[in-house]
């Protein structure tokens, strides 16, 4: 369990502790006071839900916990809880997320604002229990908001914010907070704990099911068949789907506002959608996601010292895709290298790379670009790898762009 490593700074009265990403997520969940949690263990998520169970057993968190028989039941139980008005939470990854897919797809359609951590893990086969983004990337079309964290502190802060974003009246959608398996789940660092009363004020009243309340004066059947056979035709289906898409677009604003309010209240500012690092006069850039960003920023610093005009763009909010914010971030550069920890099987490149091509089209610019794939199944992405990315991206300025992805750990 965490150790207190500093006495509270005068200004905030906040505790500073040393803990791992999984514990930070659990502590954040406790701060958000959910009513119900459902769990099934899986590497590297297990210690996260075990921390939650401990907090509940110690009376530091007043929630019901369901020890379910598999992830399909975990998410189904949370749907029941949310329909009945509970604030709900779970965490999973990899095969667990895959097994959860049916209720996973239904949750945003029912506009249930659950929060679920994905302790990201690589794809199911070849079998591996190590980190990677393939799990979260594979379900990116299912309609959940997906936010990736760079540090343990960001895990804690973002997990609390996730409840506010999910439950916002203009959003009402479930949120995945993605924290990188191994690097963040087990990586210990210094974390400032926000004050409970401040968090209570920040989150405000619980707002999970005004639209489908189990209200005795207003009984309703949720999610009956729409469209075609006996229903009102496709129009009601279209109305629901459009509403969902609108909620996703509204989320871009709500996520930004939540981060702003967080910065005001707690003094910690994170880029809500897209972070630009040393981009002001950058001629070319690399793009990153999640915990790899730390090493990438250090490498950019070194390359800058060596006179290279390189910057870095990090995506925090991956779904909904932050098109406008990215357009701004990428408007001035002449070449781009995108580093993914997953593959897009259809386009033979990284998924973030593929999404970014659409943004460049919207920008009306035809940049030379390259897709780098690394960090699969827990492989390290070191400064040496990022130097290779920087050199190869710089070479795009006056050379041909590769048609194939560059596999960073192919010889490691």
């Amino acid at each position: 369990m965490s150790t207190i490593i500093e006495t509270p700074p005068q200004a905030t009265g906040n505790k500073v502790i040393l803990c791992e990403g999984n514990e930070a997520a659990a502590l954040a969940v406790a701060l958000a006071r959910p009513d119900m949690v459902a769990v099934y263990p899986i590497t590297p998520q297990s210690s996260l839900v075990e921390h939650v169970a401990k907090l509940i057993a110690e009376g530091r968190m007043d929630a019901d916990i369901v020890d379910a028989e598999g992830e399909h039941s975990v998410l189904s139980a949370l749907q029941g809880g949310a329909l009945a008005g509970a604030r709900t939470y779970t965490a999973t990854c990899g095969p667990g997320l895959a097994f959860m897919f049916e209720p996973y797809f239904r949750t945003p359609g029912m506009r249930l604002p659950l929060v679920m951590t994905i302790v990201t893990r690589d794809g199911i086969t070849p079998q591996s229990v190590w980190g990677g983004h393939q799990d979260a990337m594979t379900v990116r079309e299912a309609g959940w908001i997906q936010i990736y964290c760079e540090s343990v502190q960001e895990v804690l802060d973002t997990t609390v914010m996730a409840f506010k974003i999910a439950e916002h009246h203009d959003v009402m959608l479930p949120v995945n907070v993605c924290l990188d398996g191994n690097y963040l789940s087990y990586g210990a660092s210094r974390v400032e704990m926000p004050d409970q009363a401040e968090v209570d004020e920040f989150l405000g009243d619980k707002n999970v099911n005004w639209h489908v309340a189990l209200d005795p004066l207003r009984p309703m059947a949720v999610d009956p068949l729409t469209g075609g056979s006996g229903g009102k035709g496709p129009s009601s289906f279209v109305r629901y789907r459009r509403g969902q898409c609108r909620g996703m677009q509204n989320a871009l604003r709500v996520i930004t506002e939540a981060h702003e309010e967080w910065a005001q209240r707690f003094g910690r500012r994170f880029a809500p959608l897209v972070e630009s690092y040393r981009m002001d006069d950058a001629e070319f850039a690399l793009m990153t996601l999640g915990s790899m960003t730390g090493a990438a920023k250090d490498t950019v610093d070194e390359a800058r010292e060596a006179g290279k005009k390189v910057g870095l763009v990090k995506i925090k909010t991956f779904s909904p895709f932050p098109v406008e914010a990215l357009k701004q971030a990428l408007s001035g550069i002449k070449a781009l290298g995108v580093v993914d920890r997953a593959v897009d099987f259809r386009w033979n490149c990284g998924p973030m790379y593929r999404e970014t091509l659409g943004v460049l089209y919207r920008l009306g610019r035809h940049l030379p670009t390259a897709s780098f794939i690394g960090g699969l199944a827990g492989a390290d992405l070191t400064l040496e790898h990022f130097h290779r990315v920087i050199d190869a991206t710089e070479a795009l300025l006056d050379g041909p762009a590769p048609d194939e992805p560059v596999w960073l750990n192919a010889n490691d």
Partner: protein
Amino acid sequence: MEAVSACPSFSARDYKSDVKPVWCPGCGDYSVLSSITKAMAELSVPPENVALVSGIGCSSRIPAYTNVFGFHGVHGRALPIATGLKISRPELTVIASGGDGDGFSIGGNHFMHACRRNVDMTYIVMDNEVYGMTKGQASPTTAPDWEKSKLTPEGTGINPFRPLVIALASGANFIARSFSGDPNHSARMIAEAIRHPGFSFVQILSPCVTFRPEQRDWKAGIRQAPVDATTDAARAARRLMTDDGFNIGVLFRGDRKPFQPSMKARVESVRDLEKEFRI
């Protein structure tokens, strides 16, 4: 039965691979591995005629440690994979194996339907009343007041799953229990299970010395079932309902006809399947 063609001269060693198990020293699963290989040697079934399918868990690593046709499935799905395999290649001896979490928790649904379907195969569950692989959480067979799991520090408070009772109620055609501490007995149970037509279920109590060290005491409580196997489901039910979980032996032998849509193998010769495959 027909899947097991008599062919002499195999020893248990012929069924072991040279992959070294990564189980903890003292884990019951080592003995189960030996028992499976002994049973196959006793039946003299050529290794290439055996398919061993597992799910995920410490116990589910077992196919890699044998040199029969092995398949490491996903968590909870050993039985449907094994079913498909047996239906397509009825001449093979098909064994599904795994743990109590894999088989009764996430895969519990398949357990009932596999019993009901009664395809001719054998299901071996290494029951340690815990999820060993994910570091010691309660499983469906864990006692409700076991408080050592970090996930349920006050116990699950939930009535345990009774695998043999459920197997019987769901229609399994052969039900036995054994103990990893008695590998010769386990080997006999497995061989009998494979010989018996239809769906055979063998629960092997197999201690997890790391997360359930108290299971080392199981040895003292294990005893031979006081009465012989019955073919009468009603009698077996009465016996299993009062069973304390420590009686070992064959507990039920049914006579239902196995389910096999057509006894024709889908592939006439393995040669037909061999094509060049470049990764």
